[in-house]
């Protein structure tokens, strides 16, 4: 295995020489800053009512009264009560941020609230978000007024909790992406590196060295796989720097290494079978896609496992799951070594 290590060191020098590692880290850093910026939008998608940036706005209310009380209670909203025509004219002059029209026949019937809002202005998104929350409050108060007409007991849970609105997003979306991206890339570069040896016919040179096929494959795998926990650790460090504490660091890094090994070994298998460059990459991407879809059926699918580990919700079952991923990775490696030995020995390159 000393010889495999020599090959791995050469791979590492290649990576540095092509500055591809640096580039990869830069790209990931870019994605991270960028996604930090997008989070506002994404969190809006995730839990629209959680974002609490509320613009000061003047709103026109037209109607017999009801919803206006809720609008009045919002500290950032001021309301005026013009006629509908004046309200719409004021809306177009830019005086009113929105026109709210309420109509209903009498106290007991359904009420209709119609909102007129400016198209494609950022404030619209924030206003709609706030209106939604106010409308739900209004709905709740009306339901409670009419409780006698409803068979179901009205259960509302009120907690004055003010959690970090990004909490669920960070652990269930951002962290899994940050862990899985380097893993995917590590498989991709392993395949590329193997493919390059085949294409430029340097594989036969390597074959004539004292390296056994197994050592050759391990040497090719080692660097891309070992770089994964380093990158993930870097991410966890960056998150901590931003005040997000990721739990279970060691199991997370172990998990990342196992899956990287799984994909890298799979990637070598692909490269040994599909000799053409672009086709290797495309086949690898397809394979990963298929594996990912199938993995979603597992009781602890990768995204969820990362989320549970990172957030600290993990229990013993999750640790067992990590070990099982390791087992699958080991099996894949064994298959790759067996296939590789046959393929490389037959000099099918």
């Amino acid at each position, binding site marked *: 295995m000393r010889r495999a290590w020599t090959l791995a060191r050469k791979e590492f020098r290649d990576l540095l020489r092509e500055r591809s590692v640096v580039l990869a880290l830069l790209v990931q850093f870019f994605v991270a800053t*960028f996604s930090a910026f997008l989070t506002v939008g994404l969190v809006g998608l995730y839990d629209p009512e959680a974002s609490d940036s509320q613009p000061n706005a003047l709103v026109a209310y037209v109607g017999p009264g009801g919803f206006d009380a809720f609008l009045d209670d919002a500290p950032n909203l001021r309301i005026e009560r013009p006629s509908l025509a004046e309200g719409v004219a004021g809306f177009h002059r830019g005086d009113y941020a929105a026109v709210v*029209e309420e109509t209903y026949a009498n106290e007991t019937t359904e009420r209709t609230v119609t909102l007129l809002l400016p198209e494609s202005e950022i404030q619209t998104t924030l206003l709609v978000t706030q209106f939604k929350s106010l409308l739900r409050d209004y709905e709740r108060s009306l339901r409670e007024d009419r409780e006698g007409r409803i068979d*179901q007991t009205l259960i509302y849970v009120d907690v004055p909790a003010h959690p970090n609105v990004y909490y669920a997003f960070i652990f269930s979306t951002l962290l899994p992406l940050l862990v899985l991206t380097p893993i995917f890339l590590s498989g991709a570069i392993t395949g590329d590196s193997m493919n390059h040896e085949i294409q430029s016919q340097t594989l036969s040179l390597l074959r004539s060295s004292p390296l056994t096929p197994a050592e050759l494959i391990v040497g090719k795998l080692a660097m891309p796989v070992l770089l994964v926990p380093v990158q993930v650790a870097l991410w966890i460090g960056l998150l901590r720097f931003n005040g997000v504490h990721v739990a279970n660091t060691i199991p997370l890094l172990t998990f990342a290494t196992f899956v990287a090994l799984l994909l890298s070994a799979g990637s070598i298998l692909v490269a040994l079978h599909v000799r053409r*460059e672009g*086709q290797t990459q495309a086949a690898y991407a397809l394979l990963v896609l298929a594996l990912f879809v199938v993995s979603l059926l597992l009781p602890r699918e990768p995204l969820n496992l990362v989320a549970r580990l990172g957030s600290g919700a993990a229990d013993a079952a999750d640790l067992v799951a990590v070990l099982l991923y390791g087992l699958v990775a080991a099996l894949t490696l064994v298959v790759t070594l067996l296939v590789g030995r046959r393929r490389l020995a037959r000099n099918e390159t």
Partner: protein
Amino acid sequence: MNRGALRIAGNEAARYVRFLQPRVLVAAALIGLLLGLSGPAVRERGLHPEAELYRVEIDPDSPLRPIVDSDRAFDVTEGVGLAFLNGRADLSILGENVHYRADDDRSASAARELELAARRWLDQALEDETDASAAFPIRVNIIYEARSLVAATPTTPTPTPTTAPGTNNTSAPQSQLVSRTGEKQLDLRPSQVEPPFPIRSLLLTFAYVVPLNFVSQLYAGSLLAERTRQRGLLLLSTPNSGAQILLGKSLPYVVATLAMSIVVTLAIHAGLVGFLAALPILAFGLATTLLIGLIARSPRELTFLLVATTVLFSTFLFLPAIFTQIHPVAFLSPVSIIISALRGQAITLGSFLYATVPLTLAALVLTGLSVALYREETLFAPRGLLAKLADAIHFRAPSRASLVGAGALAVPFAIGLELFLLIFAVTLNLRTAFVFFLMGGALVEEALKGLVAHAHITRSGRPAPPPLVGLLVGGGFFLGEKFALVFSLVGFNLLPLGRDALATFGIASSALLVFAPLLLHTVTTTLTAYGARRGRTALAWCVASLVHAAYNATVFLLLLPGVSL
């Protein structure tokens, strides 16, 4: 198109047909079977990375029991608070009382999630009620209408309500706003109200980009294989020109991309306008792939360059999500047009051209450079990426006069790269952002002009004297900028709001200020050209950028005296 190109295209396509050997088909069938079998189950299960994220301890008789059971995010155990006290649960529910730890983010998030889950569950439970006006007492209509506040057009006359306002019909009053002609969402429950953030339509347009990536990988891989195995040499020794060979090699991928984009257009109902707006996206994607395929030295470098450009390009396409409120920036991305087409909004010719022309130009420039690289001298030389780019630029702009055009064509790239700076700058505080953007913008512009100047000085047999190179390239860049400014004015009938940030456009308020940028670009490019002649391009680039940044800062402070930094 001639027969040589067609024959090469046929050969290229045949590679994939040959590739479809029995074992490949078997493998493909296996993957297909796997996906087909697991597909329905996966769809039913859905993607729930947040599953069992929160541990809840609940007493068996609690009325909240069905609520926690209805939400996958909860990992539920029965108990009366012991696990919570020991820190093994994030929430404890006793009867109707919910206990959580306010100082613990996970516990507080769990409480918040419970609040949301309760509302969802109640909405669901109320579905069966007979008295709908008690269970769902509110109906919501939302109408989005464009306001033209920026353009100094007279206020839109308000259409008088069609129903006579005097008649006080007490039976069932109808909303009068509903009759307006905006984009409408009618008859919603409060829970169904969604903010108009266009992220869903945005994600939909990625239907174009993801298949493009697959084609790109095959395309670039094939180009690289041609070079590493030197087969391209054989092709070049045939009577076909480099351009014909490239055309032939690219044709199958272009056809595949077109076919795929037609399918996508039909699938997402983007219509003809959406399809036309998608074309520059695909053209630019293929052009970058082509260039990368011709300059990358190894498969690994190829993968990284492809991944990097894909990410950057996707970011560019994502701009509308970030700068929703600044149309002149958002509409630099053709995706804005596709989104408008998807939402059935009217698109003016001006904004369509504004969104598509710069990207198309950039794609054409990259393609031109790639064709210039397809020569024996440059195709197989194991040289650096920048050296190859310089070769290609000089091949395209060999004469002194053509340097003007090269300078002008650098402008679309400058605008694109400065947008990335803008994205970064927005996350910083104002003062840092200002300095960052001034310096970054100067570095980008000087790099692009410097690359052209460097290519001329180092590659030309009889290079022009540096001041002349500076005048030609700098002047070309200046013309390009002014053209872009006029173009955006025409496209929007207004001064672009993002102009202050996009210093590229320069500020034309007096004759001196019109020509000051020309002087600036000439001087800085001259500096780089002198540096290139002495083999110190990088150093000269830094000096030129500092001069440029100092100029930008002066202009900003002179024109915006109110800004104190």
